[in-house]
């Protein structure tokens, strides 16, 4: 069974262009157009714009010293929002750290995200991790960690559990092209091939792993063709094309749901911004390349389409921007003004119950803090 008309791996060299539907000028290949209810089109657009607006606000806040760290996804919104759209809410996500678009589509609120970024007392993860290391169990979005590629084989295990229970859940795991170089990528795809688990391996090939360009990452022509080494199907898709991403992810999900096993999707896109707020790309890449990629911007491309279709107008955009501004402002303000978790929460959740040594350490910390307070008085 083959996913789409662009095949790779088993069937030959990856010489074809990535699967695409939407052209840069906003025109679309109608034969390939996925079935999307008209009312969803603007919702998708809204999610992409919202993702970008939130990212940019958070980056600004970090620059102003009001936020510790942030990691944006500018340029990759079609890949994240589109793949999220193609799935059911009951499907699981095991993300990397640059998939805010996927969560936003699924209905995570900006406040939920801001609380985590501020590590405050309302953060579901109790301020334990750096910003963008979310965990939204109520939406089947699994806890993110920094070590790259670790989530990929975990997704295979989680999918195995569903398969064993004969559930029809699909598991998508996201990662950058850099993470494909880790051993965990390899074992994940290999186990998935043998176990035929319902997994979508979604590789955001954004051209860069911090300062390391794609060419130094692997001598393989594409990342998609790596699927071939595991008896899996690999698909190359234009990651800046919301329709193409939706179509390809849908087919991979359908295949997975019907017992067809896993698929590797390589979404070709570009990291328009810095790797994170700790990074400055001017030391390692040519800004001209960035300008080139900006021409393929997924939001603008989609907007051109919507405009042609009579769905988008400038006044819609103005209203949208205003709404988002207010929403972001409210979320950030609320998050910023929520107090930090209490010191004793440090000792929660190490285990299901605290052994004596953690109880003792908790007492030690609280006594110490009590002492400090008294000193100050």
């Amino acid at each position: 069974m083959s996913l789409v008309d662009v095949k790779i791996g088993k069937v030959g060299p990856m010489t074809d262009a990535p699967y695409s539907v939407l052209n840069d000028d906003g025109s679309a290949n109608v034969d390939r157009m996925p079935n999307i209810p008209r009312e969803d089109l603007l919702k998708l657009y809204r999610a992409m714009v919202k993702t970008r607006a939130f990212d940019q606000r958070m980056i600004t806040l970090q620059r102003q010293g009001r936020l510790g760290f942030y990691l944006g996804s500018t340029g990759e919104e079609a890949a994240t929002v589109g793949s999220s759209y193609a799935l059911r809410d009951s499907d699981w996500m095991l993300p990397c750290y640059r998939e805010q678009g996927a969560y936003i589509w699924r209905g995570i609120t900006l406040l939920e995200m801001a609380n985590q970024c501020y590590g405050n007392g309302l953060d579901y993860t109790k301020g334990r991790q750096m910003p963008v290391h979310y965990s939204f169990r109520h939406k089947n979005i699994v806890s993110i960690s920094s070590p790259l590629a670790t989530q990929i084989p975990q997704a295979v295990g989680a999918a195995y559990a569903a398969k064993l229970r004969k559930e029809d859940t699909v598991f998508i795991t996201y990662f950058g092209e850099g993470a494909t170089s880790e051993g965990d990528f390899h074992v994940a795809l290999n186990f998935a091939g043998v176990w035929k688990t319902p997994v979508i391996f979604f590789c955001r090939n954004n051209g860069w792993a911090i300062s390391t360009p794609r060419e130094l990452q692997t001598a393989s022509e594409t990342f998609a063709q790596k699927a071939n080494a595991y008896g899996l199907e690999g698909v190359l898709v234009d990651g800046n094309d919301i329709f193409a991403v939706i179509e390809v992810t849908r087919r991979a999900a359908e295949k997975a749901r019907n017992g067809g096993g896993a698929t590797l999707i390589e979404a070709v896109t570009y990291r328009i911004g810095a790797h994170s707020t700790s990074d400055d790309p001017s030391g390692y890449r040519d800004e001209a390349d960035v300008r080139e990629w900006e021409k393929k911007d997924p939001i603008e491309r989609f907007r051109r389409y919507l405009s042609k279709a009579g769905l988008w107008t400038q006044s819609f955009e103005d209203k949208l921007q205003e709404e988002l501004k207010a929403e972001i402002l409210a979320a950030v303000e609320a998050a910023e003004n929520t107090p930090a978790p209490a010191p004793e929460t440090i000792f929660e959740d190490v285990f299901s119950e605290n052994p004596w040594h953690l109880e003792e350490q908790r007492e030690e910390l609280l006594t110490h803090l009590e002492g400090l307070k008294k000193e100050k008085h």
Partner: protein
Amino acid sequence: MPTMNIIQAVNDALQIQMRQDDRVVVLGEDVGKFGGVFRATSGLQKEFGAERVIDTPLAETGIIATAIGMAVNGLRPVAEIQFADYMYPAFDQIVNEMAKFRYRSGGQYTCPVVVRTPYGGGIKGGHYHSQSNEAYWAHTSGLKVVIPATPEDAKGLLLASMRQDDPVIFMEPKRMYRAGKGEVPAGDYTIELGKAKIVRPGSQVTVIAYGSMTYTALEAAKKAEAMGMDPEVIDLRSIVPLDIETIIKSVEKTGRVVIVQEAPKTGGFAAEIMALINERALMSLEAPMVRVTGWDTPFPYTLDLEYLPSAERVVEAMQKVINF
């Protein structure tokens, strides 16, 4: 009560739990059709099928990572790593993922994986089939570390490990796999994690051990007794959580301490025990505590008996602390 060796006791525990709880799956290299290179999972695939007793591809990080995914999605995986020496390809998944999953998600996810692995020397295994690496796990917040010595404890502790909600590194003393025989209660029972056992009560010196070293300590105690000494031998059974109460009570009684650890000396768990005794019972000590440990070298093949802590070395240590 039936007599079993440690392998049979482990096998029994797995069978009991798999019958009771269909969330339990067993996975690892050669654990299925073959029943494991030490035969600890023998017969399980036949009874529970290849979907619950899984022969995995050869990749430890894959075994642990998929076990984590399974646990996070409601299963109760029991992973076997063929030798403790081969846990390292999975070190990142164990230390950065399994141990931290609950904490980093603010308690949203639990990660109840039991990792069973044979550890320790004495089977002519050289560098890579002999390691005792419990200190790495004990230093990793979020892991429980259980190390039974007897068949009865192996079964009861494994059943308890499979029924609690935290990741457990369950280290089986392979040197005693077959030699460690004893009566084992039939059917279902558990032994609480974090409870040490005084395996020989005594008054003169506290000898602390776990796993295979419990046998060495007991052998030493026998020799010491013949020489007129009266040692108390404690088998810790788990090092995280640690039964500090039993240790301190004994030290307060004897004032003298010998700790036996098969792992290399520097930075081994014996040092932690010494540190804790120093913190809680320094004033009870009549002599410096003594460690009897493996040397700070890789585990050698030909000279393995010169490497392993022996009963004779433990006796000398007892003499040293008693005659101080």
